[in-house]
């Protein structure tokens, strides 16, 4: 199959960018979208032109490195897949495909389709540590975790931190990401000791990074390659206000510090 591409090309953060048209010819419909870009780049390199810069790593939908807004949708038209697992058979022959980088002030553009998503890393770092015993191996049954809780925590932990939620949101809000990261520890007994501190710190960091707020449009959930539920945002809100309102008497040691 043949497709026409309109790709955002921008040399660096400070230079102006524009859309450039390319033709991808003799594409196997079973190639992934990234493999199609590889073919285009090989051709560009052969002709002595600068290849299109795009993020990728594992190419099996678990690392969260690939991005791109394809025809207006982060990770392309398919449901619950990342760009690396979007296949060319999802497009029709002769189609013009517009490829743009994720757009958010908190995700500054580095080059072409590559954006800097370290804001997410800083949000996770703000979450801080988890209290674990560091002596000999703990007894496997010392901490009981109900199966539904473990499963729900796993659903939240499935977030690969790709940033599609931010890219799709009309407010460039990172609530779904932060909610997933807050929830996957807050749901488990191992994460309970720092539960309140964690949610307050991560939300503060999220705001400092310049992400927008949530309007509950549901776009994030719809484009998430891991299908993280909007209900985690409600849970984060619950944890946040719980942490705000339930502050009890403070230990004397904390007052002196």
């Amino acid at each position: 199959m043949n497709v026409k591409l309109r790709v955002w090309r921008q040399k660096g953060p400070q230079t102006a960018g524009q859309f450039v048209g390319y033709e991808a010819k003799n594409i196997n419909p079973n190639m992934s979208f990234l493999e199609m870009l590889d073919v285009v780049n090989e051709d560009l390199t052969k002709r002595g032109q600068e290849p299109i810069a795009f993020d990728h790593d594992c190419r099996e939908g678990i690392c969260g490195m690939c991005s791109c807004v394809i025809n207006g949708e982060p990770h392309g038209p398919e449901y619950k897949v990342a760009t690396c697992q979007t296949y060319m058979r999802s497009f029709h022959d002769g189609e013009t495909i517009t490829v743009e980088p994720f757009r958010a002030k908190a995700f500054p553009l580095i080059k072409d389709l590559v954006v800097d998503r370290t804001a997410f890393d800083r949000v996770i770092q703000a979450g801080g540590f988890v209290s674990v015993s560091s002596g000999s191996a703990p007894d496997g049954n010392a901490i009981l975790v109900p199966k539904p809780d473990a499963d729900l925590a796993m659903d939240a932990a499935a977030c690969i931190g790709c940033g599609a939620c931010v890219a799709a949101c009309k407010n460039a809000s990172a609530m779904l990401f932060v909610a997933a990261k807050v929830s996957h520890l807050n749901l488990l007994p191992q994460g309970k000791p720092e539960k309140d501190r964690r949610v307050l710190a991560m939300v503060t960091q999220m705001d400092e990074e310049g992400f927008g707020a949530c309007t509950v449009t549901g776009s994030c959930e719809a484009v998430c390659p891991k299908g993280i539920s909007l209900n985690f945002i409600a849970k984060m809100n619950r944890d946040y206000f719980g942490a705000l309102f339930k502050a009890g008497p403070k230990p004397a040691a904390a007052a002196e510090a």
Partner: protein
Amino acid sequence: MNILLRLFTSSLGKKFLMALTGAGLFLFVIGHLVGNLQVFLGPESINRYGHFLQTTPEILWPSRIGLLAFVIIHIWTSISLTLENRTARVTGYEVKELVAASTASRTMIWSGLIIFAFVCFHLAHYTLLVVHPEFRDLQDAHGRHDIYQMLVLGFSSYWVSGFYVLSIGLLCIHLSHGTSAMFQSLGLKNAEYACAIDRFAKVVAVLIFLGYISIPIAVLAGVVK
């Protein structure tokens, strides 16, 4: 950290305040509707109700001050968040696909601001009586302010009724999203009843719409005269 500071400065805090005041205003919308629907019971009922409210400052003024505070907080948080949200994306997309986002959810600020403009007119029309000062002199047989007559005269104008129906329509759209988003922002939503809340929001929005517009339509149709 200071709880008030967090409530008034963090994104989640502002959403919380918006949802809380939204909940209060939602209850007012229901209460106001129930009061107004007494017009179908005839002049005696609604005039007695109006007289009761106007001559009971212990209820009237706390309600007015409370509503004013709620409106101010609701609008301040919405404008503040909208401005922050706008700056969160400097460069927009060339191709925009509206994935899952309903029209109501994307236009909350505009439906809200138009409703606010309507509320200002509505207050000038029926409460401050500056649009029709002659409404002040309407009195019923018991010497009470004749709210029934005022309502019939006011809604006899196609312009007034048209703007009213349009604004209530926007209120319906605003609430169809706002009522369910309110539960989300307060953290009172989970997988068990998320669907029920979403449906509740839409059904209540339509009921509120039908309830309110029944009054100008009844006046224009000559049912209430």
